[in-house]
């Protein structure tokens, strides 16, 4: 039996990108103990950590707040939760200004005043740049946040209906961590690599960490997810302005014009997920003790250009709320043991007809790329769903060749595949239900927008079953 190291904290943050770091800082600033788990290298992890620098949009004058709100609403094609966007535009300026206090300096004009630039889909020049991920990571250490990087959160552990902590694998020390927390924040980023390849052709420009772990953990813990069928490609970002209110014929015409893209070989590539774990305007999920922020969080329906500001505003919100709503509960050892058994059984599994995890991953991501990612139909989605179920049946055959616990990426890949299969099923089933094209979501068989679908699909695990539900949008499309 492997030894498990016990760690106790007030607030646990899972994820070390912009959102996770901002959440940890916010919680720590309220005087509580914070532990942050990061699957990558701290300061260089997540999408935000692998961008050369950050471009952060914010309304610099109060009068711009309404315009920014309208821009974001328009960009979401009526799908964003206006309450969340209100919070975003109201608090954007402050969290961006803080980035300068942390040590960044944005571009200045000749007089020395900040000089915002334009970006796609923005009616005003409001993007401040550059800021650097590592600068924020240093604030964690300055404030005494306890960071475990290259540490993979394998499962959330619940007690009496509340999230009580997590089980994690610390790659560098080859040890298991059982983290007991009074509040837990998910900031694990998106799932771009559900469509991606680790090597050429990439198909996702996200770093390889983005495998939707947080989505799967939250789903298993009973959290509700939203807008999981929406994911943005580079193709999308580049041509969004010319497409405008997307019609599928325009999209296809563009796809034809860029022949490479229809071969699904090189460009375009997936880089941003618009949906995720539904949060309220304080960063709470529907699961007690569990908070979410950044790309893993849903409801804001942000495009990639605006995601960073979403990370910062709701990172801060989630961190503050978590620190204020802490409840000390047990981390029951039998729950921990159960999870330890699960991750170790994946490591020591020696099935007949073994399949190395990377093979299964490739199989899954190829299907997701070809049949779900960009242009899809009822038929392609149904094929994809059948294939995902087949892969799900193959999971017991996943064979980790390397049995050492020290820096065993293959073991992590195996656990990721489990998460990816869960997220894939959610994505496909939500895509099947949305029989229209809207925003970045395109179906060849339903090329036009249909107002009956002006709303969001919510996904939740109820009694062991995946349940999807449609709720009409909170905004009036006429407005």
């Amino acid at each position, binding site marked *: 039996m492997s030894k498990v190291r016990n760690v106790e904290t007030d607030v646990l943050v899972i994820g070390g990108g912009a959102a996770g770091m901002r959440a940890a800082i916010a919680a720590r600033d309220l005087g509580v103990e914070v532990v942050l788990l990061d699957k990558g290298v701290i300061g260089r992890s997540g999408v935000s950590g692998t961008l050369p620098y950050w471009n952060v949009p914010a309304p610099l004058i109060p009068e711009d707040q309404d315009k920014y709100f309208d821009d974001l609403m328009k960009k979401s094609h009526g799908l964003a939760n206006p309450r969340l966007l209100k919070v975003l535009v109201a608090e954007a300026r402050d969290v961006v200004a803080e980035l300068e206090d942390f040590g960044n300096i944005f571009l200045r004009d000749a007089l020395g005043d900040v000089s915002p630039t334009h970006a796609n889909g923005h009616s005003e020049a409001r993007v401040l740049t550059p800021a650097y991920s590592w600068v924020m990571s240093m*604030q964690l250490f300055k404030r005494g946040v306890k960071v475990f990087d290259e540490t993979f959160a394998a499962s959330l552990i619940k007690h009496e209906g509340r999230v009580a902590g997590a089980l994690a694998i610390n790659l560098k020390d080859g040890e298991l961590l059982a983290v007991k927390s009074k509040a837990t924040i998910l900031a694990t980023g998106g799932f771009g690599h559900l469509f991606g390849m680790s090597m050429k052709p990439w198909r996702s420009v996200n*770093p390889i*960490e983005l495998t939707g772990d947080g989505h799967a953990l939250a789903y298993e813990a009973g959290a509700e997810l939203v807008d999981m069928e929406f994911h943005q490609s580079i193709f999308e970002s580049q041509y969004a302005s010319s497409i405008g209110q997307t019609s599928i014929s325009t999209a296809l015409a563009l796809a034809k014009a860029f022949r490479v893209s229809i071969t699904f070989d090189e460009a375009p590539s997936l880089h941003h997920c618009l949906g995720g774990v539904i949060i309220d305007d304080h960063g709470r999920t529907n699961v007690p003790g569990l908070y979410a922020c950044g790309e893993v969080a849903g409801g804001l329906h942000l495009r990639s250009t605006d995601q960073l500001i979403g990370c910062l505003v709701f990172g801060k919100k989630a961190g503050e709320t978590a620190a204020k709503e802490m409840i000390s509960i047990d981390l029951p050892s039998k729950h921990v043991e159960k999870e330890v058994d699960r991750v170790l059984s994946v490591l020591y599994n020696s099935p007949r007809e073994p399949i190395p995890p990377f093979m299964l991953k490739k199989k899954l991501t190829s299907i997701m790329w070809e049949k779900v990612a960009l242009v899809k139909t009822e038929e392609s989605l149904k094929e994809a769903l059948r294939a995902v179920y087949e892969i799900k049946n193959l999971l017991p055959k996943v064979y980790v060749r*390397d049995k050492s616990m020290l*820096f065993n*990426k293959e073991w992590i890949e195996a656990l990721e595949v489990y998460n990816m299969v869960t997220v894939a099923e959610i994505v496909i089933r939500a895509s099947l239900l949305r029989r229209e094209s809207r925003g970045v979501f395109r179906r060849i068989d339903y090329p036009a927008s249909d107002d009956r679908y002006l709303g969001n699909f919510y996904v939740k695990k109820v009694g062991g079953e995946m349940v999807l539900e449609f709720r009409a949008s909170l905004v009036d499309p006429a407005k």
Partner: protein
Amino acid sequence: MNGEHKIIVKLFRYNPQVDKQSYYATYEVPWKEGMTLLEVLNYIYENYEPIAFRYYCRCGVCGTCGVMLNGQPVLACRTYINRVEEIIVEPLKNFNVIRDLVIDRRSMLERTIKLEPWLIRRPKREALERISWSLGELDKFYLLMSCRECYLCRAACPAAEVGFKKPELTQYPGAKFYIRDLATRLLDPRDEDKQSRLLKLKEEIDAYACTTCKKCWEVCPREFEIPEIMEELRALIAKAGLGPLEGHKTFADYIVKTGRSIERQTTPLLEQVPEVVEVPDPVDEVLFFTGCLIDYRLQNVGLSAIEVLKRNSVRVVVPKEQQCCGSPAIRSGLVEVGRAQALKNVEIFESYGIKKVVMGCPGCLLTWKLNYPRYIMEERGRLPNLEVYELTEYLVKVIGLNRLNKNLGEINMTTTYHDSCHLRRGCGIWKEPREIINLIPGLKFKEMKEHDVCCGSGGGVRAGRRPVSVEIGKRKADNIVATNVDGVLMECPFCYIQIRDMLNQFYGGKVKVFYLIDLIAEAYRRAEG
């Protein structure tokens, strides 16, 4: 297409939980055009066994996939593999290894945190305040902020290697720590903790252990002009009254007092040669700049240089008023002393109406090529009206290999060549000396291991941080002796003295040390027979 080409990959393997010691495993990987090293590693991972290696972004931004490829630090994702027979892949040098190619970055993070690279100011100002600084400063700030934290600089650095293996000699950690963590804050006009940052730079970083050899610059994916930044930082240390070290001040004092950076001992070269060395039917005329060490210590080298130029029908003018180039002061941060020397020397040399200046010291050469144009531009608003050449560079580029006097006598000897840092990375000269070496009859040439790694004398380290210098120099001596040659050639008085001392100290002078210019002159003399 005649079958697929396979590359033999020799890979460092080590799992401390299983292996008593590290070993190399060998894999065959089918080669493809445009294949990166990262793809090679992934191929092994997928098709042979799950080796441990680190990567995240795959496009050179996260800076985590650094490894040694054939002894050179590279980012695996940005390194294309040519159609070669064999490659050797190892974890980055100067790091503890977690497993296989995965290095332990934790101690680096701890060092970084100790440097407090965040903005420090009190009380807090208004948000997004007005900041007035020049576009140049802003660009530089952004460039340094964009450091990828890949630690290739550390893996390439001879001083950091000493720090890693013998921490009692120096704590010097590699360029990243002052480039990203200190220089950015020193540039930041808002930061109020500059004095303590300079103190950290001097004490915690041990800034004077950097030999300014530019190895870091060579491997940096952001192409930072690292040694120049180090010199600027040393200038800030000096301005703040915290430096330079005692050994450095002597040079500067001598320069100010005597025009030379060192003490006069024997008859200087300038007193041994006429001002004008005439030749019949000259093909060209040049000014000769001696530099302190050739004038005061290695006079023979100067005589040889003049001899070589004469043999090629070049009229040589040796300005008698010339002084120290200022390099020792500039390298240790006393920029103003250097600037004064630049003004004096340029004025003297321009007064002859001859455009080309030839010299035999790479330290002077780099100062003339790099620092002088900047100083003269700042002071006079124009560039110096002079072209500067190292001797072999002049022979190859100006005289030309076909016009060169090849009446060279035989020298029967096996030799190797040490690239001076200032010459190779500073001035881009490494082909020329080898081309000249190839012309000398009887001379057998063998390249040594790490031929372009610093000897430990540069950047004021020999003068200021002797134990570090000796440690780096010993490695150089080891490499020379391992090459099994009679003589080692070089073209830098600092390298010459350092390597001679190191070979004497550690190997009883087993290998002879030659200044390349001396050897060329000797070959000409022997031709007369």
